[in-house]
């Protein structure tokens, strides 16, 4: 059996911060033929890197199996080369030594491995930099070394984990064209993980779209764009534009999902009888905040009217960086608001600005007739744990 076969792959891991088991990847099946360039596309945190790490053999799957050319994958090996987002070059080795590393591990004599390494250094356009150390190179050049290091080892499968996400936009486009050129030249089998729709469409022969956590295959789309692919030609190309638009739709539309895109928003914790022993412990959101200083926070998961959106706040600036853009602007909802603190009189009065408060218990407040655009404001005024439509939420006792 040629190529990569992924069967019913599931990964569940334990998150010590929330004390919950998280399903990162759920029942993913996928095959990649030899010489194919497949992009895995999904929103951040959808488990696509977990998927790649399992294929690379860095983490074991919970269920399912991965076969490369008929062999079951049990750990990392030179048959699968990995290009990392963080480059992961060896700072104590020159460009030449980095690229020749895999060949050295295979026991090739020095002259031979340096000859091959120079060939690949030339392929990625880094002639003249053979004896530089990685810290003397720009980010884009470092990732060229990362690509050459894997190519020189001639793996059966090349795994790329958002390799161009940490270089600037100009360099990224150049590197994408370079990668397209190299693939057109040598046809390595590539599994490319990205969150960038245009990158996925530009580079690959096939795009696999994952759902938001837990990551499941939502759709697979062939990319019949002609090669060689160059940005200057494609940006104006109607097929390219249509494909990008289609992939965007696939990423967003809930209908394409095998199940309605609704997550169990955790409400019961606060509604269950409060345990006195747990009182002095820090609350869930406080621990969450402290565990991610300065990072982007997922603050609210909204499931309103069967559609889900989310709010992400920058912890430092407290500014929303990504807003639910699927809530219809009109209409009202009845919400169960999970405040991060007990709703005192002041907060009840504040909440009256958004809708009618019809009941409170612990940290939960029932809000009726909230205009949809104001849902966002509630989440912004209060760092809410979750906003759930009352129809979905367990009812508060009167």
């Amino acid at each position: 059996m040629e190529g990569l076969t992924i069967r019913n792959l599931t990964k569940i891991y334990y998150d010590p911060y929330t004390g919950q088991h998280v399903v990162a990847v759920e029942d993913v099946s996928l095959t990649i033929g030899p010489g194919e360039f497949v992009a895995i596309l999904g929103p951040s945190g959808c488990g696509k890197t977990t998927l790649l790490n399992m294929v690379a053999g860095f983490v074991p799957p919970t269920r399912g199996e991965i076969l490369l050319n008929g062999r079951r994958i049990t750990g990392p090996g030179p048959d699968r080369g990995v290009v990392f987002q963080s480059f992961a070059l060896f700072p104590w080795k020159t460009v030449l030594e980095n690229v020749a590393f895999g060949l050295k591990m295979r026991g090739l004599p020095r002259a031979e491995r340096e000859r091959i390494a120079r060939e690949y250094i030339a392929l990625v356009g880094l002639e003249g930099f053979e004896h530089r150390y990685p810290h003397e190179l720009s980010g884009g050049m470092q990732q060229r070394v990362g690509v050459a290091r894997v190519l020189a080892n001639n793996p059966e499968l090349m795994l790329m984990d958002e390799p161009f996400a940490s270089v600037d936009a100009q360099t990224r486009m150049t590197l994408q064209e370079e990668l397209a050129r190299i693939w057109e030249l040598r046809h390595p089998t590539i599994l490319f993980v990205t969150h960038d729709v245009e990158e996925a469409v530009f580079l690959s022969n096939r795009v696999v779209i994952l759902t938001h956590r837990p990551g499941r295959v939502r759709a697979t789309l062939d990319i019949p764009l002609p090669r060689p692919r160059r940005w200057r030609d494609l940006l104006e190309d109607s097929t390219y534009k249509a494909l990008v638009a289609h992939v965007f739709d696939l990423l967003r539309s809930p209908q394409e999902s095998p199940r309605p895109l609704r997550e169990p928003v955790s409400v019961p914790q606060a509604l269950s009888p409060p345990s006195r022993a747990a009182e002095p412990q820090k609350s869930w959101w406080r621990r969450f905040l402290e565990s991610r200083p300065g990072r982007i926070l997922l603050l609210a998961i909204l499931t309103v009217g069967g559609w889900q959106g989310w709010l992400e706040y920058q912890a430092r600036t407290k500014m929303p960086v990504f807003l639910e853009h699927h809530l219809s602007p009109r209409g009202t909802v009845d919400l169960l608001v999970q405040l991060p603190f007990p709703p005192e009189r002041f907060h009840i009065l504040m909440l009256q600005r958004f809708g009618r408060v019809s009941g409170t218990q612990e940290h939960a407040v029932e809000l009726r007739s909230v205009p949809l655009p104001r849902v966002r404001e509630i989440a912004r005024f209060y760092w809410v744990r979750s906003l759930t439509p009352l129809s979905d939420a367990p009812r508060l006792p009167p």
Partner: protein
Amino acid sequence: MKPPFLRIPRRLLAHPALQGGGPFLLLIVAWALVAELEVYPRAFFPGPGEVASAFSALVYKGILPTYLQDSVTRLVVGAAAGTAVGIPLGFLIGLHPASYRFFWPLVLFFQAIGDIAWLPILLIWFGFTLTTVTFVLVYTVIFPMIFNTALGVRSVPVEMIRAAQSLGAPPVRVLWEVLLPGALPNIITGLRNGLGYGWRALIAAEIIVGTSGIGFMMFDARRSGSVVEMILGMILLGLLWYAVDAWVLRPLEQATVERWGLVRPPS
């Protein structure tokens, strides 16, 4: 005629670390001034001139070169042994959770029993011998080496280890090609601390065990009331450490971790 070890090549004297003589010049002038004004009796507070002439007299008699050689040899042997044991142990503790659980309490426990605290029992066991001095020295060097190596190993980014593995590196090669150079900044810190502590422990041990060496010379001077020799000993201790830094540690850092961009060069 100078003894051979004092003939230092010119290019070593031109080393930038030796160029920073300014602060010391100021110190010597202040010292000379206090001595000349005879704020304290001259016998208790000799000036730079007396110390310099004591230096040449002791060199001429051959005492100082022998003692210096003894002290430095002990330091080199002890540090080498401590490093040879400390680095592998640090790797074991840093990489192997079971070893960590086993060794860590022991390391913490014995670290608390300072080098000097061992001297009484060592004097019973080994007497006033080189073994006692070496034991104290190795004991002192080993803990900073273990701590820093273990820390260094754990601070190597996991992607780098994974990259090596997926380029076909077996565990031994990962250790040699990735973990060792990756841990080197911390290992050098360990070496610096270890040698520093070791140097002090050596002098303390020489004072008590007392057969030869700089520490012995200083303590022996107490009997003849020779303050000049005590000050000379102190100056030598400082100068020797300066030399170790300038000719061993700094070049090592410059050739490795600074060249690789793992740490920024000073200034």
